[in-house]
């Protein structure tokens, strides 16, 4: 038995007036002065006021369309939240990554040709060609890269994600992360630790030497350790890391300790000599970032399971190649990218560098925000706010604001400071355009020139154009 519905107008007359004020702030004061509660919106025209975007949003708002979208989005976030990605092993890209060949170079972000690549990506590509022995030196590598003999392809189109330049070549060792719930697998490269590294565009001898050691010692030892120790539940570990103050994009100190704790016994049991084991443990300890790629692969495994649900407006990919920012949307299956120009990253720089030295936003690491951590879980990581130049209150505000553009909260990954609220999950293209709130991304800053590396960290946002194009394509596909 439920209570009978009462008349909304009688209810209004019998209640205290409680006003949502949209557009004119001066009414706020007048209403408040008369003792009524009033909430004034920080209102901007939907879709930036562009008629064609509003038309697309209106088309997606039509009741029968909206109903289909709601159902599809509910399924999408259910698949994201229910995915249980397990770290099952490590392996050479050539051996494990679908479509990999000895002359393929994977890169971050949407598709891009050699001539248009950003400095950091060019640096990483030439370094990788030298590392693979395809070129004798960087100059020769540049000629080869331009020759058309190398296949460039986005990581995302090979079930992979790549940090920063994302440059992945055949003999690099990859994480293998299997989604136990839905059966798909995702891959990503190993952390090179440090600042002067290939993925940031650095490519001198020290960088190549490290890559060789990673190929010959680190990768094989991790592979053997996983065979000894068995799969690791990454979602559980991510949830723990967030409770320990990481947001798992720019702050990975707790996650790295947890991962190392899980790997250490097996690493000790591998067949490698003790000095190699010490090298590996020293390497892991040399940077908190060691587990950064691990969480990216974890997110990728979950989001791929939610891609391709007809009618869904949930974003399944946000990725940048240093020139363009691309998104993919669940309801637009396959490799349909919607792009806009990559943005500047705003944040503190290492000593000696200035904002004009920074390259534009780059890397597939925004997969973490797409899943709901990273910038979205900033309130889980108060310690990071100094790095990205904000306050704790602002960090809480970021998470709350992301709640306005997402579909649900993920009950499996929660934030203690927000009363164990789940992380905001399932970015909805419609909500991004309707509110004018863009996803917030925590990320590193690479130097704009090839060969230098990481020079800072900060916050950035996707370009709104990517979402506008996606909304139009969604409207076309759903009507």
């Amino acid at each position, binding site marked *: *038995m*439920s*209570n009978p519905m009462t*008349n*909304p*107008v*009688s*209810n*209004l*007359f019998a*209640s*205290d*007036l*409680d*006003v*949502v*004020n*949209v*557009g*004119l702030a*001066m*009414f706020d004061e*007048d*209403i408040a002065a*008369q*003792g*009524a*509660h009033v*909430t*004034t*919106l*920080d*209102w*901007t*025209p*939907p879709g930036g*006021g562009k008629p064609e975007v*509003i038309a697309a949003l*209106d088309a997606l708002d039509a009741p029968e369309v909206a109903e289909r979208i709601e159902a599809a989005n509910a399924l999408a976030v259910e698949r994201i939240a229910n995915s249980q990605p397990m770290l099952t092993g490590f392996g050479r890209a050539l051996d494990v990554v679908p479509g990999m060949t000895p002359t393929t170079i994977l890169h971050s972000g949407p598709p891009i040709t050699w001539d248009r690549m950003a400095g950091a990506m060019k640096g990483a590509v030439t370094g990788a060609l030298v590392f693979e022995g395809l070129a004798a030196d960087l100059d020769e590598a540049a000629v080869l890269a331009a020759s058309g003999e190398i296949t460039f392809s986005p990581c995302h189109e090979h079930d992979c994600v790549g940090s920063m330049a994302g440059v992945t070549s055949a003999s690099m060792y990859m994480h293998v992360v299997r989604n136990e719930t839905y059966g798909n697998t995702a891959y990503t490269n190993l952390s090179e630790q440090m600042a002067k590294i290939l993925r940031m565009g650095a490519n001198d001898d020290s960088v190549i030497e490290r890559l060789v050691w990673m190929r010959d010692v680190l990768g094989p030892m991790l592979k053997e350790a996983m065979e000894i120790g068995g799969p690791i539940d990454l979602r559980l570990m991510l949830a723990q890391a967030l409770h320990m103050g990481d947001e798992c994009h720019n702050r990975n100190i707790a996650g790295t300790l947890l991962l190392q704790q899980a790997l250490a016994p097996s690493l000790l049991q591998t067949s490698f000599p003790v000095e190699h084991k010490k090298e590996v443990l020293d390497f892991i300890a040399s940077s908190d970032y060691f587990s950064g790629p691990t969480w990216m692969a974890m997110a990728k495994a979950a989001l791929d399971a939610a891609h391709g649900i007809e009618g869904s407006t949930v974003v399944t990919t946000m990725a940048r190649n240093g020139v363009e920012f691309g998104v993919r949307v669940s309801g637009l299956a396959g490799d349909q990218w919607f792009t806009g120009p990559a943005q500047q990253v705003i944040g503190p720089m290492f000593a000696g560098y200035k904002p004009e030295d920074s390259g534009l936003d780059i890397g597939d690491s925004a997969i973490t925000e797409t899943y709901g951590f990273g910038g979205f879980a900033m*309130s889980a990581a108060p310690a990071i706010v100094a790095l990205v130049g904000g*306050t704790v*209150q*602002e960090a*809480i*505000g970021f*998470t*709350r*604001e992301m*709640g*306005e553009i997402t579909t649900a909260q993920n009950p499996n990954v929660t934030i203690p400071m*927000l*009363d*164990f*609220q789940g992380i905001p999950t399932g970015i909805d293209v419609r*909500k991004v355009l*309707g*509110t*004018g*709130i863009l996803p917030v991304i925590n990320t590193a800053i690479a130097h704009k020139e090839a060969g230098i590396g990481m020079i800072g960290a900060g916050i950035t946002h996707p370009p709104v154009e990517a979402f506008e194009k996606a909304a139009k394509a969604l409207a076309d596909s759903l009507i």
Partner: protein
Amino acid sequence: MSTTAVVKKNTYFDSVSLMAISTKANGLDGVEQAFVAMGTEMNKGVLGNLGLLTPELEAAGNGDLMVVVDAADGADIDALLVAVEELLQRKSPAGGEAAVTHRTIAAAAQDNPAANLAVIAVNGAYAGREARKALDNGLHVLLFSDNVPVEEEVALKQLAHDKGLLMMGPDCGTAIINNVALCFGNAVRPGSVGVVAASGTGAQEVSVRIHTLGAGVSQLIGTGGRDLSEEVGGIMMIDGIRALAADPATSVIVLVSKPPAPAVEKKVLAEIATAGKPVVVYFVGGSEEAVVAAGGHFAASTQDAALKAVRLGVDPDVTVEPLDTARVDEVAALLSPEQRYVRGLFCGGTLCDESMYAMLDLGHDVWSNIQKDPERRLGADSPSTGHTFLDFGDDDFTNGRPHPMIDPSLRLARLVEEAMDPEVAVVVMDFVLGFGAHEDPVGVTLPAIEQAKRIAADAGRHLEIVGYVLGTDLDTPVLADQVAALKAAGVTVTRSSTETGQFARAIARKVTHA
């Protein structure tokens, strides 16, 4: 039927949440009845009398919350308990101290379940969309924006009607809901007169007159200026009448509008029969016959509408003072024979209308930017001619500028211009106080008034300025101060919109016949 109970030790919920839990628990499938209360002895006693006191409930203490569920036969008790637990565990909405601003109506409404009305004042191109979002979120709407296409207005009003919600506007400038004035409105006493109005300043004037007569307003529902057009068909006015008819705090209803479409007028008047309380109708230029035939009380002016309503619903003996004809004679005596015309410069549309109609009655040569007769319609740039009545709040004048109630500059310039015209006998002006209006409408006009009088005096004429201040003793600034300032500047102050029209008409009659 079986009884199941959940006892929460030392658990406290906001009373509103407690009620929500109780309501939601009653709505669960398989629940015959649910009861949520603290575990006091007396409450347990009542449960005992009903035979519902389980040992678990018996053990509940004063600070414990009892949730008692009576389940239907065959209901899945375990599932019910899980559902009840879920209700109890629902967390409060997210939101840190530093982040309480929302971008969308949906988010604001979800974060604040007590929200019940949206005031929307955005560009007309987006207004319909926002209004629809508000209605979809169960909010009543006051749509202040204009330039909303009429088809959109009809669709919004139909949607609101289907949901039982109020959809005031578009182009609704005034409402008083639960004694809170919204947008442009005056501080009036709460009371038992309900108003449904299709015109903003008309509604303000009627509410102020009701207040001045010692009565008060229960609700003032604005419908937007187009509600009584053929296309919209009076959806909001009809819903408004029904809402006030059902409102126990309303004893009498007043309807205010510019001339409605004839078919719509008929439909609206047909509501009077079923309202169950007296209905006073003031449709500018409307016919007494139709109103009386429908069982309503006809009002010939805003003053009359307020007076009849207060007499019918509050105090049968209330009266207003008649026009000061001695003052009319005094003024007429100061004028030269060539000063033959009245010029009205208004902020309020209905105030302009009311004075203009008073003149039209006489068959005078009346020109206006809001004239129904296209032959005598003036544009914003046209010079005044004959008796001219200008509504500075009309689109020709506002086009891109703030309303004259906020930005008086155009009207001030026009006042000086009129002073130079040797045929002008009287300039009539209104001054609107209240929420949303200029903070000192008289003060900002005084220099122009002095200048106008000086120009006329230098040319050897007396220029009479008649001012009406629409406001109450509760408004800021207060009515009395504004009136005193006008009087000190030599302005003849009238006491209502209706009297303003009467004064203009009486002067016009004198000078034309002189």
